[in-house]
C-alpha cells in the first residue's frame, strides 16, 4: 500500500539562515530527489549538534551536504559531514511533483490527543492490519477493527471540527447539507497510520484529519513553521 507524505517548512522562520537561488528568477525553485533513508540517517546522527548547515554541493555528484558541529569537551568542535547524493529534477518534470490540492472531503475533524491515539492504534495493530477510521461533523470519531474472532471499537467524543467554512476547495453546499451525525469512513493500513502518529513526538500544535468517504484519509500535523500531511488511500 502506498501513501503520500508532504512536509512543508517555512524556511524563513525555521532556519537561522536561508539562502536559495532557484533555476531562474521566474522559477525560483529547486526540485531535488533524495533517498529518504540516507537523509534520515544523516539527520539522526546530528540530533545533538550545536548547529547544522545544509548545503547543496557538487561532490562526486550533486549532494545535500549536511555539516554538523557536535558538542565536545575539547576546545575544538567535532565536525561531521554527510554528503547525501541527490538527483536534480529538471524543470520539465516539475509538474509531476507539484503539490496536491486538498481533495473535497466529506468530514474534517480534529484528532484526539495523539499519544492516546497512538496507544490505541498500536494495540489494534496486534489484531489486524487494517483499521477503519470514521468521523462525523459532530466531533465524534471511531477507530474500528474487525476480524473473524473479534471486533474492537474505540470511541472519541467532543473532538471538534475545523471551521473550513467557505474554503474554495471545499464544496460548501455539501458540508452545509451534510447530516452532522453521518459518519464518513476510510479503511486504511494500520502501519501507515502508525507512521503518521510517530509525528506526535514533535508535540504538534494542531492535528486533524479529513476523510473522503471510502476514498482517502488525509492527516495533517501543524507545528510552528512546519506542516506534515499524509494522504493514505482507503482500501476495500
Amino acid at each position, binding site marked *: 500500500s502506498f501513501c503520500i507524505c508532504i512536509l512543508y517548512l517555512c524556511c524563513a522562520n525555521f532556519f537561522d539562515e536561508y539562502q536559495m537561488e532557484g533555476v531562474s528568477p521566474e522559477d525560483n525553485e529547486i526540485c531535488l530527489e533524495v*533517498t529518504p533513508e*540516507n537523509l534520515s*540517517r544523516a539527520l539522526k546522527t546530528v540530533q545533538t549538534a550545536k548547529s547544522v548547515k545544509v548545503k547543496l554541493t557538487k561532490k*562526486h555528484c550533486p549532494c545535500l551536504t549536511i555539516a554538523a558541529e557536535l558538542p565536545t569537551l575539547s576546545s*575544538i568542535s*567535532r565536525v*561531521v559531514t554527510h554528503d547525501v547524493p541527490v538527483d536534480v529534477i529538471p524543470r520539465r518534470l516539475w509538474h509531476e511533483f507539484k503539490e496536491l490540492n486538498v481533495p473535497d472531503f466529506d468530514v474534517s475533524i480534529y484528532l484526539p490527543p495523539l499519544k492516546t491515539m497512538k496507544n490505541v492504534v498500536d494495540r489494534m495493530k496486534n489484531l489486524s492490519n487494517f483499521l477503519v477510521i470514521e468521523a462525523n461533523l459532530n466531533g465524534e470519531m471511531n477507530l474500528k477493527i474487525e476480524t473473524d474472532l473479534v471486533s474492537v471499537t474505540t470511541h472519541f467524543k467532543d473532538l471538534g471540527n475545523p471551521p473550513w467554512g467557505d474554503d474554495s476547495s471545499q464544496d460548501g453546499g455539501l458540508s452545509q447539507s451534510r447530516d452532522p451525525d453521518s459518519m464518513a469512513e476510510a479503511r486504511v493500513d494500520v502501519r501507515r497510520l502508525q507512521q503518521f502518529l510517530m509525528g506526535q513526538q514533535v508535540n504538534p500544535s494542531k492535528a486533524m484529519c479529513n476523510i473522503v468517504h471510502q476514498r482517502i484519509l488525509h492527516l495533517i500535523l501543524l507545528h510552528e513553521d512546519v506542516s506534515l500531511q499524509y494522504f493514505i488511500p482507503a482500501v476495500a
Partner: protein
Amino acid sequence: MHCVVTGGNVKVLAKAVHSLSRIGDDLYVEPQEDGLALRSVNSSRSAYACFLFAPLFFSRYSVPNDHTFRCKMAIKSVQAVFRSLATLEKTVEKCHIELDEQKDRLTFTLHCKHSLLKTHNLSFQDSESLQAVFDKDSCANIFRAQPRLLVDTVVHFPSSLEEVTVSVSDERMWVRNHVEEGAEQSRAMLTELCLASDEFDHFSVKNHNSITFCLKELRGLLVFAESTGLPVSMYFDEPGSPVVLSVTDSVLEGNFVLATLSEDPSLRKNNSKGAHTLPPPPPDDFMNDDIDSYLIAMDTSVAPGPSTAGPPTPPLADSTCSKQSAVATHRTRTHREEDEEAEEDETDDSDRPPNKKFRSLFFGLVLPPSSQISTQPVMSQEVLASDSENETQAE
C-alpha cells in the same frame, strides 16, 4: 585445568566471549602460564582477536604444566553459557571452568544464588595454535581514547557499513566511510567525522597516512570497552599493515588485529581535508589478490597430546580455498612488506619452504614475545613470510 572466576569478573568474561563472537564462529581456548587466552579469527583471516586473562583475574587458576592444551569450540555454545548478562550479574556468584580430557569436554559450572548450579558441558575439538604476530609498540601512529569517543564516532556510520577509512595528521583524525570502486561510487552517501587530537588521551603520529579496515569487526571491541570503561588504544603504521586495537587493565588484555587495505593508488580524497597518502609501493607481480599481508603463526605439525586424541582439525578448508569476502579480496601484499617480514623473522623460517596448508593471513612484522612462543611445540613451523614462488604453487 581448573579455573574459577568470581563476582563481577564473570560478566567481564562473558562480555569478552560476546565480543569475540563478532569476529569468528569458533572460540580458541588456550590456558597458558601467563593466563587464559581466548581467541577468535574470521573465515577470511583478516581479523583476529585475543583476550588474555591473567591468573590474577581468577580466584583460582591451575593449568596443566606438562603439555600444551589447546582447543576450539563453537562460540555460540559458549555464548549460551553466558547468555543473559543481566541475569549473570544478579545471580551468578562463581564460574568454574574445568577440563575433562577423557571426555573431550570443557565444563562451565555457574554457581548461582540459592545454591543453584548450572552445568554446561561443551565438547571441543583439538586445534592448532592461533596466534597473530604483531608488535604494537613499534607502530608509527599510536592513539588512546576513552571508549565514549569511539562509540560516538561509529554511531554516525550505519551498522551495515563494511569499511571505514581513518586518516591522520599531527593534530587531527578523520574517519570516513570507504566506498568501493565502481558504479556504486557515484550514488553512495559519504560521511566524514573529524576528531581533534585533544579529544584523545594520547595522540602520537609519525606517519601522515590513511588506513582502511572493516568497521564491523571493531564494534565488538567497542561494546566491551564501553561496558568496562577501559580506554581503547589504537596502533597502526601504514596501509597494508594491520591496525591493532586494544584494551588493557591489570588483569586482562584484549587485542583486536584487523587487516587493512594496502595502498591503493586510486584512493579517493573526497575533500581538501583528506590526509596525504603515501606514494604507491611498487606493483606486486607475484601476489594473488586474496592473500593477506601477514601470517598468523600457525602450528602446522601435529601437536603432542590433545591432537592425538582425535583427528587434527586444522582449518585447511579455510586457508586453501580462502573465502573471498569483499574484504579479503583487497588484501594485497606488497613486495616491500614481504621483504620487511623476511628480515624481521627471527626463527629463520624464511629458508624453509612454508607449509602450504596453513599459510593464511599474517598480521605482524615481528615475533611475539617469548612467553607466547614458549607454549608452542618445538617442531612447529612458523610461517611468517612465504616467497611468491611457493604461493603461486599453492594457489
